């Protein structure tokens, strides 16, 4: 950790803004911000950062926001920012980092994730997509699923089996796959909301150069675990003001529509409000722990609670609406590039929220992870080596 302070960072941002117009060319501005080390301030110099303490990121972002500077549209590239970048920083070569981190951060290149497979499900390590060495390349064949943004993405982080003879967790290698390469086919995957937010990705003889391998051959599983932990923090780690989440929608509805109120629903609304506020404070405490350099396992708690609350609250909203809760807005197959929970009907939120306890690790898997890694309870007898 370097000696940077919040005041110093505010000074650096001010100096940067004196030479770079935040209202000028958007991409140019973001590139310059990256080059000045003011992108991810905790990254090392040359990779978008200054080696500053991570808690100064918020200070930096706030200073840019105050000045009306453009952001890097993080919701459009959540896999890139939340999962790919931290993994690359930790496991990729210097050359790989130089190639990928800058356009990733500026949003010029969107990333997606090719991990999940139809037959693997929660048992991710049983994946079957194969990569076979062929000269300087690997040839990849297989099918991936639940890939958000695949239809917009330039790059993908990819897990493929490189040693079918090795034990389940040992024969997997981590790659970066060019989504424009021949043999990559993306098909929309429609959900129960009617939308196709995700995709199926078919990989047929896709050539991935060996210099797009991240980490050693056979170490993909360990590296992916880092990525998955990052995903959990990425999902649960945003700071929210009170009533900042879905509970705010419910509370506003309660306040603005007195004719919908009943005594029974009042009790439900209050219970949901209490649970949402508790979850929010737990997420805040997690951020404070991280900022104090004591990251704990609380991220899993945040993700579990988020899923349960979003399901409960959206379900309650539908009931509170009564007659209006019988309606939907649009069943046509849309292709969203950003989640738009708040702009749609309560019934959309209710349906979409069903996915919160499935995507990014099912709630069942999370509970097992908490029980074993946090509480130290013994694993179940394993029958699959």
């Amino acid at each position: 950790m370097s000696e940077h302070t919040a005041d110093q960072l505010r000074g650096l941002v001010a100096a940067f803004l004196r030479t770079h117009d935040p209202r000028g060319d958007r991409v140019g501005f973001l590139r310059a911000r990256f080059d000045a080390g003011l992108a991810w301030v905790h990254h090392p110099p040359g990779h978008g950062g200054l080696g500053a303490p991570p808690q100064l990121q918020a200070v930096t972002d706030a200073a840019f926001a105050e000045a009306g500077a453009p952001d890097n549209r993080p919701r459009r590239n959540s896999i890139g920012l939340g999962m790919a970048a931290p993994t690359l920083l930790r496991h990729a070569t210097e050359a790989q980092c130089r190639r990928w981190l800058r356009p990733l951060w500026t949003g010029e290149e969107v990333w997606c994730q090719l991990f999940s497979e139809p037959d693997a499900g929660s048992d991710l390590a049983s994946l079957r997509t194969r990569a076979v060495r062929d000269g300087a390349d690997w040839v990849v064949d297989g099918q991936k699923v639940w890939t958000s943004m695949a239809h917009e993405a330039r790059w993908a982080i990819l897990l493929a089996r490189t040693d079918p003879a090795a034990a389940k967790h040992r024969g997997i290698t981590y790659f970066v796959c060019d989504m424009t390469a021949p043999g990559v086919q993306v098909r929309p995957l429609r959900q129960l909301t009617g939308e196709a937010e995700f995709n199926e990705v078919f990989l047929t003889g896709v050539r991935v150069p060996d210099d797009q391998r991240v980490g050693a051959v056979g170490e993909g599983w360990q590296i992916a675990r880092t990525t998955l932990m990052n995903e959990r923090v990425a999902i649960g780690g945003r700071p929210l003001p009170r009533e900042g989440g879905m509970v705010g929608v419910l509370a506003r509805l309660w306040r603005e529509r007195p004719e919908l109120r009943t005594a029974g629903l009042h009790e439900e609304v209050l219970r949901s409000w209490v649970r949402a506020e508790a979850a929010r404070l737990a997420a805040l405490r997690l951020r404070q722990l991280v900022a104090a350099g004591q990251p704990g396992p609380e991220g899993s708690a945040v993700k579990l609670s988020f899923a349960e609350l979003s399901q409960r609250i959206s379900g309650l909203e539908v009931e509170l609406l009564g007659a209006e809760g019988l309606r939907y807005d649009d069943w046509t197959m849309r292709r969203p590039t950003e989640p738009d929970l708040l702009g749609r009907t309560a019934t959309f939120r209710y349906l979409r929220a069903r996915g919160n306890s499935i995507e990014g690790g099912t709630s069942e898997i999370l509970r097992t992870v908490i029980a074993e890694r946090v509480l130290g309870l013994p694993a179940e007898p394993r029958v699959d080596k």
Partner: protein
Amino acid sequence: MSDLLYDSDEEALRDTVRALLAAHAPWQRTLARLDDGEPYDAALWTRLVDQLGVTGLAVPVEYGGAGAGFREVAVVLEELGRAVAPVPFLGVVVATRALLACGERELLGQLATGERDVALAVCLATAPDAAPRPVTVAPGPVLTGTVTGVADALAGDVLLVPAGDGLYAVNAADRGVRLTPVVSLDATRPLADVAFTGAPARLVAAGPMAARAVSAALTAGAALLASEQVGLAQWCLDATVAHVRDRRQFGRPIGSFQAVKHRLADLWVEITEARAVARHAADRLAAGHPEASLAAALAQAYCAPVAVRAAEVCVQLHGGLGFTWEHPAHLYLKRAKSAAVAFGTTDRHRAALARLVDLPAPAEVPDRAD
């Protein structure tokens, strides 16, 4: 003491309905209809009416019906729930109860034979004890006003409309009637907003009889919907059990994991109880028992959340698959959630129970003592 079992006639009826639905209403077909924008399965409905006479079940023999009763109707609804079948049976049953309360022979006879479909023009979300009356009557009589979210109206030939202090019959094809389809959460039970602009009407019942007919119809809807919910929940449990027995993760069927087993065991307990509650409601309704309202309120208070939970567990334990459009789980989820709003949400039914079994609400909201 009510009879909570199924007798042999009822079991035979169930078998017949189930076989017909298996042959003619597999979920793939229902799902395809959604994409085609054709809500009702008119061919299926014709079979149910013509071959099985479902619309006549609750109509007395002297009015042209089969003279069976609401217990049998409940069995049919269980099977329709199990198949999320897109037919307007529930709406017809609700209208039947209203017509029975009015002694309306002619329409009952037409309804029993399937000559005409009848629907009660009340929002599906309306609880038995709270029927708003947005339609007004002018001399003629003609009706003016809009009723939103009416179930099974799109299939109706005749609409029964509470208006003023009467209940009126209106020809749905009249040009004073406009039906606007609604984008419904449960597309297998399509809703419509119904606008009356000086539509000619015929008085079916007036004054207290009209009010009683509407309330009785909605009570019947609440009581019988419980059987649909039980059938739906049972399908969700069965489908999930089949899936988790089959699907393997970590080298074992996921149905061998204890948390999955216990969750499904809990669901089975809830469905076991819901079935008893739904049979009780159907039996009380069929018998015209003084506690039919109580049994109906209990049925919705208990069975509605069980169906929702069953559908939610079904989606969850199917993992990503259950979240896709191509798997039928979402048809059940949408039906279950929509049914939880139909005829009033559970809190309203609990409030009704509070009155019926003398568990009064606090006299007033206590004031803050500062």
